């Protein structure tokens, strides 16, 4: 597990700076708690899995119908 990355993520979600007392406390706890580390690690990997699937392109037929419904001309790239 990349501890720094995980800590960064936790701190971001807590709305805290990585050097804040609260984040330092979390860091200390993670160093000594395999259970918490495993919990955070499993969640992080699930999130990554979803992120790797990525966004879909709008199918051509869907795109064509959208412009028709809106009565607009699609701008050129």
């Amino acid at each position, binding site marked *: 597990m990349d501890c720094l990355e995980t800590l960064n993520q936790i701190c971001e979600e807590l709305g805290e700076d990585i050097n804040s007392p609260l984040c330092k406390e979390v860091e200390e706890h993670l160093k000594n708690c395999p259970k918490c580390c495993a919990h955070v690690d*499993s*969640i992080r*990997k*699930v999130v990554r*899995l979803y*992120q790797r699937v990525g966004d879909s392109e709008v199918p051509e037929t*869907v795109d064509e119908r959208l412009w028709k419904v809106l009565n*607009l001309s699609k701008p050129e790239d």
Partner: protein
Amino acid sequence: MEISEQELVRLAKNGDRSAQAKIVKDHEKMVYNLGLKLLGDEEKAECVLQETFLKVLQALPKFQEKSQLATWIYRIATNQALMRIRKKKTRHISIDEDKDDDGRDYSAFVQSLDADPLDNLLNLELKEKMDRAIEQLPENYKTVFVMKDIEGLALKEIAEILDLSLPAVKSNLHRARVNLRNKLADMWN
């Protein structure tokens, strides 16, 4: 030459068709993907796409520009998608399902993610499991998870779009992640 968002909005508000078309083009992929991930259905995602932009063009003259254009469009798209979700039968989650830590050992599951995540992604069965897991999430968890972890919006922006407090968004996000991890681990075994 690229024009500023402010200028683009001003032109579109005044009825400039090419400015309106540019707004649609710049945001259509984002709206389609939001619909697709929240509703899990291409046909419904297309409905959300069309309804959102019809609404955007109609409401544009009233857009007060207090938020970014993308945030405003996201809010409209989210409302359209949520209305469709709410038409579906409401599903209640059990207390057990919502627990942060159910005392289970997830190490085998985590190791399987370490082993070949890329190959797994190409695996249709896994993709179906992931879609099913997200589909089963309660609406308030699913919306926040899709917006933050898949679409990459900032927590503050999500709070603004959903009209929720920041702590509520964080709490829903945490519960969504745990819920998904538990569901996927169940499906894995």
